[in-house]
């Protein structure tokens, strides 16, 4: 049976401000991609996160959307996003669309 992994982003990156694109890339490759590849679902929970950089959102999410766009909305979900955080996620989606 498929599982859903809920990732608390503030705890994962120990900050309410997500800025480090290198760590974002490493996180995506080593933690998120294996979940997706196994057929499971992932929920990115942004509770407590209030700001981000484009370097972070692009490194983490644009590549993810490029590879798995069809899964967004069913097996890839974003929870508790402030309007600003939602903007960064959507912006990464737009960036992925531009690349594809």
């Amino acid at each position, binding site marked *: 049976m498929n599982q859903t992994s809920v990732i608390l982003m503030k705890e994962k*990156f120990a*900050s*309410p*401000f*997500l*800025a*480090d*694109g*290198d760590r974002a*890339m*490493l996180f995506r*490759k080593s933690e998120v991609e294996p979940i997706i590849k196994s057929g499971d679902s992932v*929920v990115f929970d942004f509770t407590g996160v*209030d*700001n981000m*950089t*484009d*370097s*972070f959102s*692009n*490194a983490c999410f*644009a590549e993810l959307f490029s590879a798995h766009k069809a899964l*967004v*909305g*069913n097996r*890839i*979900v*974003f*929870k*508790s*996003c402030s*309007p*600003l955080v*939602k*903007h960064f*996620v*959507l*912006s990464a*989606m*737009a*960036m992925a*669309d*531009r690349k594809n």
Partner: protein
Amino acid sequence: MSVTIELNAKYEAKKAGALIRKLAEGDAKGVSEIILDIRKMTFYEPLALCIILATVHRWREKEGKKVEIKYYSNTNGGSYAERMDFFKHLGIEVKTERQRHDSNDNFITIRQITRNTDEALLGREISSCLVKDMSGQQATDTMHLMEYLLGEIIKNCMQHSRGIGFLHAQYFRSDGMFLMGIADDGIGVSGSYRLNDSPRYKVGASDVYMLGEALTVESSSTTHRREMFGLSSPNYGVGLPMCRALTEDSMGHFGIYSGDAYVFDDFGKTGTSAMAPKKLGANFRGVAVGIGFTRSAVGQVSFLEILKDVKIRLGLQNAKNGPSIPGAFQ
């Protein structure tokens, strides 16, 4: 051969080019000893302080040059520099009985940036300090804008320089401006494109050309590195163009100096509007970035709205609300 470099009394961000050209006297052929005379100093803006520190660090640590600093710590300028930890970073211990950190001041002391710097932590610390006398939504929007700018320029320094950087930020009540400066002693913009094997690097291309590339959206020196991660992961090349556009929207200025090239743009306020890089007339070996913005201009419009407008202007988004995917957000 020894050379004495006597700096001017004042260096504002827009005069950073003049400072770099003066410091370049220490890079002349055969110079092994430099006497840097800063005794006239009355006031150096954050970018100027960082440029001096990065240059002295390079002379000493990378080129093995002997550098002697002639300074006064008991003048107004010297006292200010001492409070910013400028002398400490120059390796000078100043004995003072003065209270060094007034909790009402909106500044952080100069910080050294290395590969281990946590830009999120540092960005939040600095931003919180600079807005501590503000309140409500304006404080939040201002802090988020500053965090964004700091996060991008610190990451840029860490990711591309392969050197040591110095960062300083302050709010100047007299003219209502936030000023940030960062300068490193690294490989510079052209060096980053060359050493990352970027397809955008052109053998023999000028620093002016390569700086123009760096300020172009999706044209970072590591944008082509699709599958790497870790210390030199790829990026999408939006950081610097975003920083430049955000400073324009917040009635500020943006300056970047690397190699024999620079851009200083205050978006026409003093007739200094330079969309394209120009020759600097000297060679700044690393990268220096200075950002200023007007406090009153932030908070009139939310940071989110500024971000959306800038991204549409840069062609990073088509519609104000971006793409829509049903079920993506809970």
